[in-house]
Structures are given as structure tokens and as C-alpha cells.
């Protein structure tokens, strides 16, 4: 998967803070210890721990974790705002760690721009000059950089506010300025460091939609750091879930939700409304009888929620078709099994047809949610392998992840 279609390629990356930090990654006696033990032994704090992944061109790669999990450090390592302690890091195949300061500045000026949690706007400058700041650093002439800044400001929906100062803007507006500043340089990659954590929930949603829209329109590669699972699931093509500096699971939102790699992840995704994330294809079974001829037609990546709606409306299983070819059908039992967090084949097949018209299974959801999914296949899978286990649903194109994932 490395090579030209990955923007960032990260291998065995470490970031250790503290005295003589460099000795930690190379010492197998230390690397065998937990982060807390290493701190006790050496006084060093391991922020990023032997992390490997690729960011593919055009995708939104989300790094998710609780505070202190090392995600913000990790994203700063990508442009060496924080110098990694050990490991390999390439951007477009070029070794970032080998760059001299001038080349590194070049990278930061033109290839990767970052949006920060606390905006980092210059308080003494207007919106216009804040957005043009990156271009100013590049040495672009005043007239030109202002013209370009104006375009970007319009793009992020701040037209008319060019002459305001940051302290005259709301938090959301300030972050739009931060976003515009990053976009103004027209970088290959946008890095987001918890950009919306400091915003009110409603504004946060707006901003998320804004980012989603931008991504749709421009297809720019994005690396997105967040501690908010909903945000990660909403925006991410793939999600790397971090804990104590290491990636515990890397996969599509669906994989994360349906096949948590360990108890930690499972706990994390427990409250996620699966029907919003999981595609109907996960609940699909072959059509039986006349099922192939009736019922609403859904795309394979339609969500389970849409499937539920269709089945409830029609009273019969819905059909899944791709390019006019019937892939299978979903019925209420299998849909409910997904909602309940059960593996599809755990659903009760005693009477496949009996369910018609009887959609409600009282208590099912609560049970499903509260139980730790029992001895499901995923739960038993060894850590780290979960994400690489091929999906049993043939229709999902994405989701397989052959990247080496370390946990």
C-alpha cells in the first residue's frame, strides 16, 4: 500500500519526551514495558509509541483517542512541528525526517497545512491578513495574497467579515478563519488538530459539515485528530484509534463499530447508534422466493437505519442492488440484530418469514447493547487482527486493511 498513492507513510514512529529520550525506542527491555512503567523507570513520557500507518491520497484519515493518547503529538510529528524520536516518515515517498530546515519549511508552506484547536490567529491582524498570513510567509506580494485570501474567505463562508479582528468573531468564525488560512496555501494535505473541540455542539456540527463539504468538493487529503467518536465516524474514511500512544485499531468506521479490536474499543463504541454507521449489506442474506421481486431497492452502502425504514414501510424485506444486480435482501430480524450489536448470524432464524409485519422485539436492543456481544467472532479475534479480518459481506469495497497495524 506504500508508494505513490499514500500521502503519508509512517513506520515505527516513536515520540518520547524526557531526559535521554532517544534511548527508549531502541531498548527492547524498555519497549516491553507499559507507558507508565517506562515513565517510572526512566522519567520519560512516551507520547507516540511505535506507530505505523499510511494516509491514502484523497481520504479523510481520522486519528481518534482520549486526551493524553498521543494523537496531537502524532499529527505534529507529521510535519515535524514535534521532532519524532525514532521511526520512518515519508510524504509522497520523500523522507521527511531527512529534510533540511529549508526543505521542511517548503513542505509546511506548500504541502501540508494545519488547523489548530485553539485557532492560533494573530490577534492584531484582520481576518483578511490572517488568512493571507501563510501566503505572506511564502513571500507572495500583498495584492496577490489578499486577492487569494478573499477567495478562500468566501469559500469558507466568511465573506463580508474580512476587516474584522479575531476577537470580534465567534469561535466558529475564528475556526473558519483558521481553516481558510490553511486552505489559502492550497496544500496537498490538511491536518486538523481537534479543530472543533472548543466549539459549541451546534457550531461544531456546522463545521463538520463544512469540512465534509470541502472534502467532497476538492477531494483533498485530510488528517483529522479528534477525541469525539461521533465526529470521527462522521468524517473519517478510516479511523486510527489511539491509546497510550499506540494505535489499538485502524479501520473503517464500520469496522471499528462492528468489530472492535478489544474491550477498550468496544467500550468506546458502545453507545454508537450502529444503524447510522453500518451499511445494510452487513445484514444481507440471499433472497428467498419472491423476495427478489419485491420490496424497496437499496444501495449496498445505505445504512441499516435506511433499511429499517424501508422494511417498516413495506412490511417485506428490502432488496440490495448494485448497478442493477441483486445482491441480496435484508429482513427485520437481521436488521435488528445489527442494531442490537449481534453478529447477523446470531439472529433467530426459526421462522424467517414469521417476522413479516412484526418488527418490534421489545427489550432486544437494550439487551444487545448492554451485553458485551457474547463470544462473537470479532471479540475472540486476536488484538490487531480484527481490522484485517476480511469482511464477510462481499459487497463492501472498502474496509479491508492490509496495512501493517500495530497494537
Amino acid at each position, binding site marked *: 500500500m506504500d508508494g505513490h498513492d499514500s500521502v503519508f507513510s509512517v513506520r515505527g514512529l516513536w515520540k518520547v519526551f524526557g531526559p535521554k529520550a532517544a534511548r527508549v525506542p531502541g531498548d527492547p527491555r524498555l519497549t516491553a514495558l507499559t507507558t507508565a512503567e517506562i515513565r517510572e523507570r526512566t522519567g520519560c513520557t512516551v507520547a507516540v509509541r511505535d506507530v505505523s500507518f499510511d494516509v491514502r491520497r484523497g481520504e479523510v484519515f481520522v486519528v481518534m483517542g482520549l486526551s493524553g493518547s498521543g494523537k496531537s503529538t502524532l499529527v505534529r510529528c507529521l*510535519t515535524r*512541528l514535534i521532532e519524532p524520536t525514532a521511526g520512518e516518515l515519508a510524504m509522497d515517498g520523500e523522507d521527511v525526517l531527512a529534510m533540511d530546515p529549508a526543505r*521542511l*519549511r*517548503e*513542505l*509546511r*508552506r*506548500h504541502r501540508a*497545512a*494545519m488547523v*489548530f*484547536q*485553539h*485557532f*492560533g*490567529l*494573530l*490577534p*492584531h*491582524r484582520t481576518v483578511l491578513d490572517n488568512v493571507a*498570513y*501563510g501566503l*505572506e*510567509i*511564502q513571500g507572495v506580494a500583498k495584492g496577490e495574497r489578499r486577492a487569494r485570501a478573499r477567495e478562500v474567505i468566501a469559500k469558507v463562508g466568511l465573506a463580508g467579515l474580512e476587516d474584522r*479582528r479575531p476577537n470580534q468573531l465567534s469561535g466558529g468564525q475564528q475556526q473558519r478563519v*483558521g481553516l481558510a*488560512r490553511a486552505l489559502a*496555501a492550497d496544500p496537498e494535505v490538511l*491536518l486538523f488538530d481537534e479543530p472543533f473541540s472548543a466549539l459549541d455542539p451546534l457550531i461544531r456540527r456546522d463545521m463538520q459539515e463544512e469540512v465534509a463539504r470541502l472534502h467532497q468538493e476538492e477531494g483533498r487529503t485530510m488528517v483529522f485528530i479528534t477525541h469525539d467518536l461521533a465526529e470521527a465516524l462522521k468524517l473519517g474514511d478510516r479511523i486510527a484509534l489511539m491509546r497510550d500512544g499506540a494505535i489499538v485499531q485502524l479501520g473503517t468506521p464500520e469496522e471499528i463499530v462492528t468489530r472492535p479490536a478489544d474491550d477498550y474499543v468496544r467500550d468506546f463504541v458502545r453507545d454508537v447508534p450502529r444503524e447510522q454507521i453500518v451499511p445494510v449489506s452487513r445484514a444481507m442474506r440471499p433472497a428467498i422466493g419472491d423476495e427478489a421481486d419485491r420490496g424497496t431497492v437499496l444501495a449496498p452502502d445505505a445504512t441499516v437505519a435506511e433499511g429499517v425504514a424501508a422494511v417498516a414501510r413495506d412490511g417485506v424485506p428490502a432488496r440490495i442492488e448494485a448497478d442493477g444486480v441483486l445482491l441480496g435482501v435484508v429482513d427485520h430480524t437481521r436488521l435488528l440484530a445489527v442494531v442490537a450489536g449481534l453478529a447477523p448470524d446470531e439472529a433467530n432464524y426459526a421462522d424467517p418469514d414469521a417476522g413479516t409485519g412484526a418488527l418490534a422485539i421489545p427489550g432486544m436492543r437494550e439487551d444487545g447493547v448492554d451485553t458485551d456481544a457474547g463470544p462473537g467472532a470479532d471479540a475472540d479475534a486476536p488484538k490487531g487482527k480484527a481490522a484485517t479480518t476480511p469482511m464477510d459481506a462481499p459487497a463492501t469495497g472498502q474496509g479491508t486493511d492490509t496495512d501493517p497495524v500495530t497494537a
Partner: protein
Amino acid sequence: MSTVTTSRPIVDGERPPGHTDAPGRRRTRRLVRPSTPMVLLALALLLPTAALLGGGGWPQALRVDLVPALDSFADWVVDNRETHPVFLYFLLHLSNAATDSVAWVHDLLTAAGWAGVLTAATALAWYAGGAGRRGAGPALIALGSLAGCGFLGLWEQATETLALMLVSVVVAVVLGLLLGLAGGLSDTAQRILRPVLDTMQVLPSFAYLLPLVLIFGIGTPSALITTVIYAMPPMVRMTTLGLRGADPAVLEASRSLGSTSWQRLWTARLPMARPQLLLGLNQTIMMALSMVVIASVVGAGGLGESVYQALKTRDFGQGLTAGLAIVLIAVWLDRTTAAAGARGGVPVGRRGTGLVLVAAGGGLLAGSSAGGEWPEAVTVDIAAPLNTVVDWLVGNLYQDVPVLGGTSVWAGNFTSWVLNPLNNGLQALPWWSLLLLAAAVALLVGTWRGASTAVLALSCIGVLGIWDKALYTLSQVLVAVALTLLLGFAIGILAARVRTVERLLRPVFDAMQTLPQFIYLIPVVQLFNAGRVAAITAAAVYALPAVVRVTTQGLKQVSPAALEVSRSLGATTWQQIRDVQWPLARPALLVAANQGVVLVLAVVVIGGLVGGGALGFDVVKGLTAGELGTGLIAGAGIVCLGLALDKLTQPAGRPALTHHSH
């Protein structure tokens, strides 16, 4: 003078008081708690024993007499300063540049005429305030203050003072910026600068007056350089502070966009440090103004000379008038710079700028044609009524006040019952026990490093052969500090709780801090007789405003939530003060104590002028009677005493204070 108000305390701590970083504070406590009683016990046993065992005094064998060497160096300078290349090719140019630039600014001000200066200053103040409605306040103050100088009949003197001020402020700001940049950007530079600035803060300005006069003689260059040395530290501190305090998020954002460090300095660090830079400028101006009288001792004319001359004829009223003019200039410059700071970098519109330029230009034209001198008809004499008031006060308070006794009686009793015993006690203690005591106290309050500095500084005093004199001075300093803190804390607590008190005190203290101390020396002597009590009173009067201010600020910074909790639990006022405000404000109060020490030391030399004797007197004598060696060593003694006392009152975990001193 809003900024003067906060100004001193703010420069005074690189961090606002009360924000001592937690680990530091914890460290101090851990260190203090187990050892305090033991150390105190040990001292309680040790000191009386020591006093009984051995006569005090620093052993003769450990002394080095530098006076002859310094005196012969002075002779050498006098004999060679007209021929030696160092003087001819370096110092002469410096001296000429100083004289020329001050003369040029003065010529410019004279040529602009009073009307020109008035309009220009008013327009500038308006511009600083944003050239809109908000600029009206500063503009009116500028107009009123300067016109006030004219009304007092001191226009000519004011322009002389202003000329020296402007040049020295420009030089101090430029140098301060450069040093501040170094300190702000490089940790090494900061490590070097910090102790230098710390020393400068306890360095009495009289001490460097001496070598300057030796090299440059009496006149503008000495006055200018003295003022620059004195006024520069706050600029350095505030620049460093501003650069170091830059929002890291902004700097990181700038870095993430690929900026070079130069670009970050110009586009982010410096613009964001603007408030601190302006505060530094404000401080520098105020410090320079407080040097006006001292500068006149070495030949700067202007208002300082008026004060000095008035005092010679014991014309208190005239002295106060000249002092008032200095205060007026301070108010004007303070408000203008404060307005510029409050504007927060919002640029002034083109129309405002144009208006300002037109107004200033027109004023200058009109002024230069109208002539430089303020019309004598438009002056008022406030000296005579002031004199009457003071004479009445002094006449009635000196003695024979029923029951209370009168100031001369108090002074006498105070000397007999407090000063003499304390001084005798200190003199009776063997030198080594005092070193031990200093080390112990410094350790309790601060760090090992502070303790060793304190011991070293005290040893220096002994080696220089001025141990006895230093103790004589020390006894006065201790009493003055105690008095200042007692009064300062009491007033500070009152001001923190009663807003009216604070509002009433504020202008009084502002004026007190800007008014040259020389002015109140005469009534102090008349009330308390020349001697140590007069010196102590002068010192306490000088140090009190800052102590009150820091105390008030510290108490007011105590989190309202904590206070609310204690109120909700039904605590009495006294309980609130004792259980909540006091402990929470303790760091700030330590700052206040330290401030008191440094300020009191700053006026030890002034105390020498009213009979304080010892080190302060020697410095004065060195300067006025040409006994350079004696003066320099006494100056060094004051510095050592200052360093030691500073360390004894400087808690650990707090960055060194940045006060000012004389």
C-alpha cells in the same frame, strides 16, 4: 495615572503576584515546614550565646581597603581623561552625542514654542487614543498637564526636563528592546541578563553617578547616562516578558505555515508583545521622570534643578510646585502611552491621521511664530500658600501636642527604644552568627542559591571594611521595612475591602510615587529632627505606595469563589481575611515585602541627606566632596545589603523580582 498605579507592581513581578507556580510553592512549604521550628530554636539558642561570647565586628584580618586604590584610579582618570585614547576616541564621542542630541531636542521644543508643544502633545495624545472619541480623554489630559506646567510658571524648566527625558527614553527604549529581544529569544541571554537586572534593581543610582561624573564630568552626558541606566531595566524586562509570553498556539500556527524564525519574530512575537512593550515604554518614562532631580545633581537643569534650588532656601512650596510640574508631565506621558496600549493595535483611520498631522503642523507653525516663552502673566503662585500650610503643620505637630507629645518627642523615643537597642544588638553579634542567620533565613524563605548569594553579599560588606556602617544602615532599613509593611498591609487590607478607600488613595499614591523624594525631606526633618528617624520616615513614605498597592492587588486577586464559599458558610469579616484572603494572598504579600525592602534600600542614600548616616551618607559625601573611593565602596555596600535582603525576602519558585530602585 492608571498605569502608574499598576505599573510598579507589574514590572515588579515578571509574573503577576499570586501566580506563583505551584511546584515552586510546594517545594518551599515542604522545605519550610519541618525545619522552621528547629532552625528557629537553634537560632534562639545560638544568637544570644554568640553575642555573649564574642564582640561583634568583622575581623581586621579579613578586610581589604580599596579606598586608596579607587582614589588613585580617580586621580588617574582626572589626569588622563583629556589625552587617553579611550576617552578621546570613544567616550568623547558618546559625550558629544549626548550633549548634542539633548540640546537639539531642547532647541526644537523651544522653537516650536509653548503653543506648538501644547498642540503637538495634545494631537499626539489624541492619536494615541485612536483619534476618535476615546482619544479625547488622553488629549485633554495632555493639554491640561502641559498647560499646568505653564501656569505654575515652569514652562522653560519643563522643556529642559522634557528634552533630557525624551532623549534618554529613546535611548533606554532602544537599548532595552535589544537586550529584551536577546533575553526573550535566547535562554542563555536570559540567564545572563536576569542577575544583572536583579543587581541593577538594588543599585542606588547615586552609586553609578560617581563613576559617571568621574568620567564625563558634571553635565548632560552624566545626567543622560544615569537616567538611561536607571530607566532601561523595565524595558528589558517587559520586552522579554512579552516575547516569552507570546501565545504558543499562534507561534505554532506560524511555524506550521513554514515561517522562518525571523518571520515569526516580526509577524507574530513582536506584534503580540505590543501591550508589554507599551507597558515597558510607560515604565521607562516613569522611571526616567523619577530621576529628574537626581540627574540635576550632576548638572541636568530643568525641573530637577528648580526642586533642588527651592530646597536650598527651604522653600518647600516652591519645591512642591516644581515637583507638581514633574507629576503633571508624568500624568500626561502616562495617559498617552496607556491610551496607546489600551487601543490594542487597532490602526487609526486615514482621516484621523490626517487631522492629527494638520493640527500638529498648524500648532507648530503658530507656536514657532508666537515664541517659546510662556507668558508670565498667565502663571499662578501656589508656593506661598503651600508654605503657610506646611509651616502651620510643622509648627503645631513638632512638640507640646497635648497627650500625644508631638513628632520630635516620638522621634526621640523611637530612637531611644527601638533604633538604639536594635543597632547595639546587631553590632554586638559576632559577624559569623549574622552570616549564619542570613543563610538560615534565606534557606527558609527561598533556595540554596539565594542563601549562598546572601552570605556572599554580606561577606563582601565585611571584606570591604564597612561592616559596622552597614549594620548601622541595616538597623534603619529593618525598622523602615517593618514600619512600611505594618502600615502597608493595614492600608492595603483596608483598600482591598473598601473601594472608596482605594479610590481615594489612588491619586495620592500616584503622585507620591512620581514626586521627587527630595521635596518632603525638609518637612520630615522639621518634624522629626535630622537623624535616623527622619531617614526612616522618608524611606517609609517612599516605599509605602508600592507595598499598599501590591497588598491590595494580592488580596483582590483571591478567587471570589473561595470568598463566596467562606461567606456562604457564615464567616465573619475577620475570618474571611484570616482564613481565605490572607493564605491565598500570601505569595503576593511576600512580593510586597520584597518590594518594601528594595524600595527602602533605594532611598538609603536619600536618608543620608537627612541624617541617616553610615552608608547612605558616605555615598552622598563621595559624590559631593569628591571622595570617590569612600563613595564607591559605600555604594557597593548598599548593593550587597540589597542583594542579601532581596534574597532573604524572595521566595523560591518565583522568578526574581524586577523592581526599580535608586
